């Protein structure tokens, strides 16, 4: 049997042409290859989204700047948000889930490999469709431009009256198409985790990574669907004369907000739960201890999943829903802070009494803990609705959610990259470059997003292409912009590290970190069939049991 794997050409001696390789990758249904396709796709869009952010920050470096016109700026923030959420964060997290879940649960592939491929290609085409708007959409300002309605596209700004041409339709269709892909992938993850675990791996014994992605998939199924429904309604309004959001016919602009945020809030948990998954796998290994409180971590995850479906209108505190409704969403939002906080404490308790090794993945995880703590606390501030009446829709909110998404999610993603790169490529990355990336990015992140809170506190709303001098916003905006360049430098070092290490890195072996979950028991990179023999497990850390036969986990669990 050919030991065909991802990184190396076939060893059977036939030389295969570039077209053959391309064909293999395009038609693949192997979860590892699809995972890598997702990840590479997302990295490309990460750079594009980063350029969009840079353009905005240059425009905002000083008041009344004219680097770009308001029309271009408005397209930038719409595309930046839409790209980063739907074509960077979701694909990259699906990519890691696809790659790792079968390996971690001792399976040979996902439950539905062809559905897997369908999911990836739908996401890919969705992204291309969104960017095709740059040439294909007839917007208000002439031929070819991107949507400019904001990533949450509030009605009635998106109606034909106020969004002439097709740019909004590209937004709608791109998200519809990639939404089907996301739902497909989520169904696949649920079926895989529930149906393909190896013998002995009960739900209580599977890695937290699998649990967190299972709950994430459940949220995708329940939350992306409402967005799909709302998108269909918007298309019906725009093209068949329907009146869902047509305020002139008695329709409601607020109901779009409800439908969008019923998607939008669980969506951020869709993004953050996999980040928690990375942290829950990496922190124990580099602390040399089992995760503290596994059952509580599972319980907290499920609680977060449920509660997250009930907090959505905290994005609408200023909309005028009435005191009683506001009060309900205050309590539900504050409630979700409890299981989230419990997770932070459990990660700390995992590190407590351990022997912490400050390799690059762990550095990123420690920064994640610090930053996610702050992000959670600024979230608690805004959950106090009257405080949100000041902070909402200002740069304080922008700072908060970037703190979560960049400071929390992206940092754990970097940790995940460095942690699993040896497994996926068979090579070790450069630790020096990894640390350089970490420090550059850390400095840039804090320069930008710490100081971004301040203009919000001083009254600066979001989504403005320029601002008035003399309100105390100028200096802070300049500092925020400068941080962007440090982050860009960090990303360049990161990409360079990945490329250099892929071609020149030392062989990593199957278990460079002395870790305990099943993916480290097979080759790096894993063969197409993952495992020679499907393993049987007795505890949550099967490799710990093997390495410590006198002191196995299953005696204590």
């Amino acid at each position, binding site marked *: 049997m050919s030991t065909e794997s991802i990184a190396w050409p076939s060893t059977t001696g036939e030389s295969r042409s570039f077209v053959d390789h391309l064909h293999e990758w395009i038609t693949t249904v192997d979860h590892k290859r699809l995972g890598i396709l997702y990840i590479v796709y997302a990295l490309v869009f990460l750079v594009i989204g980063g350029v969009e952010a840079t353009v905005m920050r240059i425009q905002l470096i000083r008041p009344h700047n004219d680097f770009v*016109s308001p*029309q271009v700026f408005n397209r930038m923030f719409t595309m930046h948000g839409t790209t980063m959420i739907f074509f960077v964060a979701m694909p990259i997290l699906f990519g890691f889930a696809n790659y790792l879940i079968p390996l971690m649960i001792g399976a040979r592939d996902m439950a539905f490999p062809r559905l897997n491929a369908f999911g990836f290609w739908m996401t890919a085409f969705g992204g291309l469709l969104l960017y095709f708007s740059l040439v294909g959409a007839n917007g208000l300002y002439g031929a070819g431009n991107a949507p*400019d309605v*904001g990533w949450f596209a*509030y009605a*009635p*700004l998106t109606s034909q009256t*106020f969004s002439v041409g097709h740019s909004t339709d590209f937004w709608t269709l791109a998200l519809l198409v990639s939404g089907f892909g996301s739902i497909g992938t989520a169904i696949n993850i649920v079926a895989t985790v529930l149906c393909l675990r190896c013998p002995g791996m009960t739900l209580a014994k599977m890695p937290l990574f699998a649990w967190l992605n299972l709950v994430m998939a459940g949220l995708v199924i329940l939350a992306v669907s409402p967005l799909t429904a709302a998108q269909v309604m918007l298309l019906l309004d725009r093209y068949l004369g329907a009146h869902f959001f047509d*305020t002139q016919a008695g329709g*409601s602009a607020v109901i779009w907000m409800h439908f969008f945020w019923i998607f939008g809030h669980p969506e951020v948990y869709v993004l953050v739960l996999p980040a928690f998954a990375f942290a829950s796998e990496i922190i124990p290994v580099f602390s*040399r*201890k*089992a995760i*503290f*409180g*596994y059952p*509580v971590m599972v319980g907290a995850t499920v609680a977060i999943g449920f509660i997250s479906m009930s907090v959505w209108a905290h994005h609408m505190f*200023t909309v*005028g829903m009435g005191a009683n409704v506001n*009060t309900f969403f*205050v*309590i539900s939002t*504050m409630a979700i*802070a*409890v299981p989230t906080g*419990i997770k*932070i*404490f*459990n990660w*700390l*308790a995992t590190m*407590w*009494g351990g*022997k912490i090794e400050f390799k690059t993945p762990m550095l990123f995880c*420690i920064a994640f*803990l610090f930053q996610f*703590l702050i992000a959670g*606390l600024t979230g608690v*501030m805004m*959950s106090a*609705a*009257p*405080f949100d*009446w*000041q902070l*909402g*829709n200002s740069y304080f909110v922008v700072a908060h959610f970037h703190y979560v998404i960049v400071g929390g999610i992206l940092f754990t993603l970097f940790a995940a990259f460095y942690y699993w790169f040896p497994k996926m490529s068979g090579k070790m990355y450069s630790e020096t470059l990894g*640390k350089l990336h970490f420090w550059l990015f850390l400095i840039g992140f*804090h320069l930008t997003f*710490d100081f971004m809170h*301040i203009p919000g506190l*001083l*009254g600066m*709303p979001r*989504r403005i292409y320029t601002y*008035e001098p*003399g*309100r*105390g916003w100028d200096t802070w905006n300049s500092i925020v912009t400068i941080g962007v360049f440090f982050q860009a430098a960090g990303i360049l070092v990161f990409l360079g590290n990945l490329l250099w290490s892929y071609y020149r890195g030392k062989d990593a072996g199957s278990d460079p970190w002395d870790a305990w979950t099943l993916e480290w028991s097979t080759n790096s990179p894993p063969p197409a069939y993952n495992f020679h023999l499907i393993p049987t497990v007795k505890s949550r850390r099967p490799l710990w049991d093997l390495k410590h036969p006198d002191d196995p986990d299953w005696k*204590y669990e």
Partner: protein
Amino acid sequence: MLQMRSSMSRFLAQTIVLLFWCAVAVWASEPKGSSPDGTNIFAPASTPAKSIFGLSLFVLAVTGVIFLVVFALLLYCVVKFRKRRNDDGREPPQVYGSNQVELAWTVIPVLIVVALFMATARVIATVQKAARPDNGIEVIAIGHQFWWEYRYPALGVVTANELHVPVSDDSRPTPTFIKLLSADTDHSFWIPRLAGKTDLIPNHPNSMWIDPHETGVYLGQCAQYCGTQHAKMLLRVYVQSQDEFDRWIQEQRQPATVGNAVSQGQRIFETTACINCHTVAGTVANGRFGPDLTHLMSRDTIAAGAAKNTPENLRQWILNPAAIKPGSLMPAMQLSDPELDALTTYLETLR
């Protein structure tokens, strides 16, 4: 060596970041807007803003304490439990969990949440269920792309972009109640020093109230993305003494003063498309799409705060609005230079 240096430098970096953050918080909390030009949410000048400010101090204190405690624990972990150079290579004792600890750090956050919630619920009720005293002023604010229309129904005044309200004394309050409507897309009315923001949503009337305690000009701007020129939909609220306010009302109620002969500028105004959008009370112009211009010269700014109200800016605005506010819905009027001069002169008479 690398590990120890790494952990120490991380400790340093995180502490520096923390100190920075503290310094900044202190800086930011200084009332920047003790001069009336501030938009600092921590410089409240009206009861809603003050209630929010009080709540915010409580919330900041609680979250601040939580942050310090957890950060200290993190720092301690990272320093105390780092792998030493002379490590013996054995795995540390494996601790799988502890029910008591889990209970403790569940119960304590729940109690904190209950306290925060109760404080919050009280302020929501204070602001959103406030009783309406009889001597309040009522204003209807209508959001447009990209300007603000104000109507004082009981006082018979219609104006645009610059809101005038009387100052309110706690002993005998004269609050202003603002009903918020929209003529097109979503907007949001935000004057940080006077109140939290409330949105203007078509087919969904909202209301808010302010009772400013000091006279002066309070600044803000639209806080819900409403289209191309969302950024320049600025707000100016003039808080005046009761006498000044009454005088302003009287002036605003007058129709436009028209000279004996209809000037050339007025003729241009009334025969080009201006009257399709604009109203000048007492003349044939009664368009509703754009701002009411009857007392244009009583305002400090034009184009919803995008430019100062000077003859040059006014002329430029009519000649080419895109030079001041690209994407605004005012069309360039394609007038010749003499026509522009005459028109500007006419507009200058609308005091």
